[in-house]
């Protein structure tokens, strides 16, 4: 059992002059795989380092297993950490790297041997146990770093951008390995990354952070379908969500959105929420894959049709990314074309009103 709780935790540097985390409250459940995601400098690594005990908590309470650990040194927190640069000891062999923490704990040699061999077998690094880290590839080093954490059988696994130094192919491979490892070990995992694909594919729940503040903490599906604000909507999903300035127009028999010379019928379930915005500007959010090349087949009568000129058409295999302009801004649609589309072609795009996202222009929060 290993829950992690942040209670109004703050973190500042330079005697309080620079505040990185202004006040964080977060609950991580036992055996959960939580990914903290956000842009560079958002405080995600600082949050992880506070759990590890490598950064002191400025104020508030940090609890592991309901025990306040603010002043507990890293070695007594029963955690293990995998670093971005692997941080293997260069003068030790793979075996010694993995056995180091156990040796410090004065665990009997037989037991150390058993644990190292168990981890090496799972991670498929048995043939490299006598090698020094410099004689290993990036992927192998990463597995050794994971093994070093595994042998300690910690309550919490902390992973700080562990895949960012690997090439794309290896990253995909290691991603699934880490997910399987989590299933096998049944331990709490806290994983930090700036890569939203990693977050979406691996996490049970994702913490989206910006400027030290949690923007949303939810399951990957919820974050994708129901982003609470424009930051989350823009951060989750690739290519990112298109944002279009639009005006709400209330009519006798319904509501419409007017943007760049087009009019879009707002679905009925959104009328109540948008009532207060009559005559005002809001932001319309459309994911690139929500543009359709055929009229929607369902009963949804809302939405509209756009006639756009493809400025650039990027073929990505099964799909094509089309860059087009609406007003002064460029947007992107990801479609499955029936015929080849080239730059300069006119394309008809359909939008379904019920799948769109509506944001308050001033607060950037979802309506």
């Amino acid at each position, binding site marked *: 059992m290993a829950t992690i709780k942040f209670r109004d935790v703050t973190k500042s540097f330079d005697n309080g002059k620079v505040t990185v985390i202004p006040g964080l409250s977060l609950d991580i459940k036992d055996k959960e795989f939580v990914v903290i995601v956000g842009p560079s400098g958002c405080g995600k690594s600082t949050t992880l380092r506070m759990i590890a*005990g*490598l950064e002191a908590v400025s104020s508030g309470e940090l609890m592991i297993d309901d025990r306040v650990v603010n002043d507990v040194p890293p070695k007594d927190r029963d955690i293990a950490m995998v*670093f971005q*640069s692997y*941080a293997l*000891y260069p*003068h030790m062999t793979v075996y010694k790297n993995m056995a180091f923490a156990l040796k410090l704990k004065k665990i009997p040699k037989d037991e150390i041997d058993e644990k190292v061999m168990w981890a090496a077998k799972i991670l498929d690094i048995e043939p490299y146990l006598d090698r020094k880290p410099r004689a290993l590839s990036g992927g192998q080093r990463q597995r050794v770093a994971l093994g*070093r954490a595994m042998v300690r059988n910690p309550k919490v696994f902390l992973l700080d951008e562990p895949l960012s130094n690997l090439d794309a192919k290896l990253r995909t491979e290691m991603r699934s390995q880490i997910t399987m490892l989590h299933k096998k070990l049944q331990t709490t995992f806290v994983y930090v990354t700036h890569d939203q694909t990693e977050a979406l594919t691996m996490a049970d729940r994702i913490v989206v952070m910006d400027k030290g503040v949690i923007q949303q903490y939810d399951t990957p599906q919820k974050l994708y379908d129901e982003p609470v604000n424009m930051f989350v909507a823009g951060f989750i999903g690739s290519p990112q969500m298109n944002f279009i300035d639009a005006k709400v127009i209330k009519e006798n028999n319904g509501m419409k959105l007017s943007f760049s010379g087009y009019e879009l019928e707002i679905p009925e379930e959104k009328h109540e929420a948008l009532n207060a915005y009559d005559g005002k500007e809001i932001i319309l959010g459309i994911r690139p894959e929500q543009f359709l090349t055929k009229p929607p087949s369902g009963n949804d009568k809302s939405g509209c049709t756009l006639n756009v000129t493809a400025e650039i058409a990027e073929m990505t295999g099964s799909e094509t990314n089309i860059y087009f302009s609406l007003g002064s801004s460029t947007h992107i649609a990801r479609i499955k074309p029936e015929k080849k589309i080239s730059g300069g072609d006119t394309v008809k795009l359909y939008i379904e009103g019920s799948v769109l996202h509506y944001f308050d222009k001033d607060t950037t929060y979802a309506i």
Partner: protein
Amino acid sequence: MMKTGFKFRNIIIYSALIIASAVFLAPIVIILINSVKGNFYISDAPFSLPDKDTFVGLQNFIKGFTQSDFMRSFAVSAFITVFSVTGIVISTSMTAWYIVRVRNRFTKIIYYLFVFSMIVPFQMVMYTVTYYAFELHLNNPIGIVFIYLGFGSGLSVFMFSGFIKSIPTEIEEAAVVDGCSPIKTFFLVIFPILKPTAITVAILNAMWIWNDYLLPYLVLGSGSDKTLPVAVQMALTGGYGNKDMGALMAMLVLAILPIIIFYLFCQKYIIKGVVAGAVKG
């Protein structure tokens, strides 16, 4: 055309290097060849190679060994060198680690003081050092170790700092998470990584301390605790300033032998250490 130019330039460079090597090696070669020649022939034909008339075998070595207190001076020199170098390597590597990792105004000042101490010539401070060495009762083989620790720390801290800057802090953090105290982190993780620089620092300091003449002469004098360079200078002096040159040459050969062996044994690390410190610092 370019190839000829390149070749010509190489010939000039190699010639210059060969001449420079010859100039540096000449005194050693002269000492070597004269150490097995009779006294008369050393002054008569110092540059000639030994032949059946001039060759005296190990006679000079035996004389040098038996008629001077070579062994005692050798032991004093070895004691001072070993303990000074060990002290310098351990204390300066720890100091450099602290200076690099704990960055504040205090450590910055300390670092610049160390660097500044490198550029102050010994001659400028030798009288005050000698005076205080006597005042503090450091004028003995144990005391002089502390003086060497002071003189050797400037360059050593500078070299260690350069290398430590290139070690990712994540390695130290991994050690902390694994359960290391700061002392354990240093001795089990950092110091082994510093090995190439530590060996370089050890070689540079060992060569200097072993061969040093002025400081031990001023502090220890020419009494029973004199070091080897002082002993060689004092030994085998006959009447009217007459010297047994053959035995002197033999003593010189024996005196430089340990440090040459130590250098050859560790030389593969010296380049590694200097480069690592210089490039990544």
